[in-house]
């Protein structure tokens, strides 16, 4: 009981400072909380016609971050992260590990990273407060500085700074995707499952050595804040088609650009799925440039048109 009172006392002091904290400071606190706190969140991911319930557990074992993500519906689909290694355990394939600082696919990695990296493409604006998952939440809008990308809204728990809700919003303010926490539990000690995960032997990280370096592709135009992450040559999974690959990102929005031999039937010029993922194609001679990513199709189209060989 005394401990709880002490905790409340300790929390009430930062609460005063919280009143005039700028939006960026909120995001920085969230980033830190995602990396350092021990917690379990149950959340649902809403996409056009999909609702996926998930559980995410995060903690620290021997000073290393350990996290566990489980899809609760359908065939088992889990991911475990120990330090900088993420292992995907899925029903239809052998488990494999990749080198990664976050479990990709649920909470955007950028939210746990240095938020100032996002400042070139987005502005942070403090919004109102509302109650989410039974907790008081503070809204921080991540507003795009141009119409080349989508906007985001994140609600943070006012006690722990952990995210309670994350929305992706199209240029005309339609909700594209939502992560909604239904329960947030702050843990006092590392849960057994994370200790187990830490001890477990996971498959070795897939070899990154046998890749072919790609051609020196350049872009005559990229939206502000977008940077080329990776260029390589590989074969598409599934179709085994050889492609030149360039990954570009502004931190939150990731775009893949492929250059390949054009197929028999031309691909549609622009294509938008209901969860915001778009695809744009530009045909150049007997090659086609395909750009894929969660940004407006017009942006992809412009990027595909602006690629050139140096």
């Amino acid at each position: 009981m005394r401990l709880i009172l002490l905790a409340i006392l300790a929390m009430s002091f930062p609460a005063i400072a919280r009143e005039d904290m700028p939006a960026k400071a909120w995001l920085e606190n969230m980033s830190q909380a995602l990396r350092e706190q021990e917690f379990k969140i149950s959340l649902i991911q809403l996409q056009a016609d999909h609702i996926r319930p998930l559980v995410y557990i995060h903690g620290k074992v021997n000073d290393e971050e350990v996290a566990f993500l489980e899809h609760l519906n359908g065939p088992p689909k889990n991911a475990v992260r120990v330090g900088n290694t993420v292992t995907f355990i899925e029903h239809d394939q052998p488990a494999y590990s990749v080198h990664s600082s976050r479990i990709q696919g649920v909470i955007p990695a950028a939210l746990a990273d240095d938020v100032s990296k996002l400042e070139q493409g987005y502005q942070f604006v403090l919004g109102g407060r509302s109650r989410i998952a039974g907790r008081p939440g503070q809204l921080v809008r991540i507003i795009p500085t141009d119409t080349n990308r989508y906007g985001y809204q994140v609600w943070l728990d006012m006690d722990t700074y952990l995210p309670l809700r994350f929305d992706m919003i199209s240029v005309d303010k339609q909700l594209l995707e939502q992560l909604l926490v239904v329960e947030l539990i702050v843990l006092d000690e590392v849960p057994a499952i994370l200790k187990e995960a830490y001890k477990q032997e996971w498959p070795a990280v897939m070899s990154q050595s046998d890749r072919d370096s790609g051609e020196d592709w350049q872009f005559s135009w990229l939206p502000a804040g977008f940077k080329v992450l990776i260029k390589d040559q590989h074969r598409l999974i599934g179709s085994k088609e050889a492609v030149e690959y360039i990954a570009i990102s502004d931190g939150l929005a990731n775009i893949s650009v492929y250059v390949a031999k054009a197929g028999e039937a031309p691909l549609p010029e622009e294509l938008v799925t209901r969860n915001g993922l778009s695809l744009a194609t530009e045909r150049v001679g007997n090659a086609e440039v395909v750009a894929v990513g969660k940004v407006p199709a017009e942006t992809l189209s412009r990027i595909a048109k602006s690629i050139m060989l140096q």
Partner: protein
Amino acid sequence: MDKLGQEWVSAAVDGEVDEHTLAELAADADSHEQWRDYHLIGDAMRGELPKTMSLDLSASIMAAIEQEPAMLPPQPVVEVVEDINEPVVKKTSNVIPLFKQFGQYAIAASVALVAVIGVQNYNQETLVESSPLPVLNTRPLIGSASPVSLQTGAVQQNQSYTNDQVADQRRRINAYIQDHMLQQRLNNGVNIDDNSEVDTTPVAQ
């Protein structure tokens, strides 16, 4: 109040008039408001305003309350009361007298009241719609763009291409999108400067 009069009051605020003029000002009830406003402006410019300042809405609110008939009219001001069934009318009319009675508090507590009215609206909607699947109501409304199975492009061009070509097109779109998703997993590492040969990797969802 004309311009000349305003200057006169302004001078009085700055203490540039004699006692006789001040007495005249005290007698002139019309100028009192000006007198107060000039002091307020002066305080604001010197940065001497208190942190919370009553903008003296009380008088106007009191007047508004007095003008209000003692009984509430059958059609309250809030628009939500139209075309709804009886239990909801009762609920909403509970809110309105509260609003009137505590006119002064209503300003400070306006946020809370908005929340209350909002909840009332929400309840009413669910009553009216009485959807059998409340869970589905929480789903975001998303425009009816093309489905994730990506048929749009193919369907549009159906006439000019054979089924094989359409299938091929769809297969290639899916291949690109799958590869994009897998790349997100691979590219996320810190300081990765190279990438794996993807045809050896397992298929990601």
